[in-house]
């Protein structure tokens, strides 16, 4: 699995607000990288531009040698980039299995019929929802909806996975399971761009981090070093950590 994500000079304005202001970084193939920053620093906006939900005002996003910057989300998904949403977005009229089946049917490769059903069951098992494909998504707990959403993202068979605070809201034992899942994905060769506030998860998963503040990258590099950098502590971790 090859696939390098290279972001250069990315910009996005919302009216008078510059949400992302010249962001550049790269995700190497097979790397789990953390994208950190205080609330409103522009992390989700970067994710949205990579996945095609928003169009960048300037800059470029290249993945696997392909320019994604002007592509629609469905094309980007077919190039091997999948995402979860910060606020879970289950499709309520579809069953749990159908939510996942959708991505298999329209993802990077096309699966349908018997074969797809088996693949769906595999993915559900992988995220811990084995045997629950027939349930309505509305009846799932919040955590299980997050699991379903991960399965749906994985079902488009991405090379790069964008996780927007996917671990947020989990209790300590669920968090451990979540971290193991992401680590397992990395073991399979997948690159992951992880937006996360939970330091425990970042330390456990990311060898490198990029930290944003007010739309700009203020630090990047080895996680341990970045998390100790004074500008990061003052911008992001707040006074009580200083």
């Amino acid at each position, binding site marked *: 699995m090859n696939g390098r994500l290279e972001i250069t000079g990315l910009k996005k304005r919302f009216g008078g607000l510059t949400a992302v202001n010249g962001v550049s970084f790269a995700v190497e193939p097979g790397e789990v990288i953390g994208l950190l920053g205080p609330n409103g620093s522009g992390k989700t906006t970067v994710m949205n531009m990579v996945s095609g939900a928003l169009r960048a005002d300037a800059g470029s996003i290249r993945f696997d040698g392909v320019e994604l910057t002007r592509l*629609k989300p469905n094309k980007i998904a077919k190039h091997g980039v999948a995402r979860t949403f910060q606020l879970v977005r289950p*499709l309520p*009229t579809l069953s749990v299995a159908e939510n996942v089946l959708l*991505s298999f049917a329209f993802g990077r490769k096309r699966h349908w019929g018997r074969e797809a059903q088996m693949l769906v069951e595999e993915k559900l098992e992988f995220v811990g929802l084995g045997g629950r494909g027939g349930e309505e998504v509305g009846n799932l707990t919040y955590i299980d909806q997050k699991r379903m959403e991960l399965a749906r993202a994985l079902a488009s068979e991405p090379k790069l996975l964008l996780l927007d605070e996917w671990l947020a809201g989990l209790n300590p034992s669920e968090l451990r399971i979540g971290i193991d899942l992401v680590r397992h994905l990395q073991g399979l060769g997948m690159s992951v761009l992880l937006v996360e506030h939970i330091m425990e998860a970042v330390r456990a998963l990311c060898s490198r981090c990029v930290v944003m503040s007010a739309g700009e990258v203020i630090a990047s590099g080895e996680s341990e070093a970045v998390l100790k950098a004074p500008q990061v502590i003052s911008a992001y971790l707040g006074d009580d950590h200083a």
Partner: protein
Amino acid sequence: MKQTVFILLGLAVLALLAAAPYLLSDYGTALLLGMTGYITLATAWAMFSGPTRYVSLATVAFFGIGAYTVAVLSEVLPYPLVLLVAALIGLTVAIIVGLSTLRLAGVYFVIFTFGLAELVRQTVTWWEVNVTETLGRYIFLPFEGRHIYWQLLALLVVTLLISWWIGRSRYGLALKAIGDDETVAEHAGINVPGLKLALFAISATIITLVGAIQAPRWTYIEPSIVFNPTVSFLTLIMALLGGPSKLWGPMVGAIPLFLLFEWLSANFPDHFSILLGALFIMIVFFMPKGILAKLEDLRAGGAS
């Protein structure tokens, strides 16, 4: 095994329906004809609007385009070609309308499609009055009720087959996803605008053909007859009553409502619109997902 039984049963019912004009009076055939027309309209409407929840009130725009094409061309071209031209005009208008409106969401789409139907009607009226200087046209085609009925029956079968095929293909799943959340659908790899446009166009083309096939029934047509907005509302209510997200839903809604409307318009012609409105509200209020879903709920409730 079970499937074979279903297919045989379906063919038997179809044979019976095809033979119906020989078994029924002229009035009975006319009733069956009208009913088949509305079942086809409701099924075609639900094909697009059911899963995507884009409520279209443009039904009569396409229906009227079909009828008018036949009125204008029936003495110029052979009949099969007239139908083909009508279908192509319907398809073209649907693609133009689709490209310009399917970005609209919710109530804006509803209003636009309603406006579209009025716009088409006014344009045709203006054209007839000012350019051709005839308001109203005669259609002389050697068709009796049963001939029209058979054509509609064939169209209905094709419509049901298309709808069934879409429902079990991956596009059926994609359309439901679009109805739920277009952003998620796009991120799952679906070409959302393309798929919406395709379905809208297929649905509109079938609706155009219903209008075209039914046109000879009237012998005399004018814009206020074939562009009557009631057609759009009836189609909508029928599909909603039966349940637009199920293959048989529109049919289940169309049959009783068609009979009821026939009875109402025969017995209470002056109050028809009010009764129609009241019924509409009751259906939306008591059975927002339609009869079929209601029955399923009742069954599930009874079982547990």
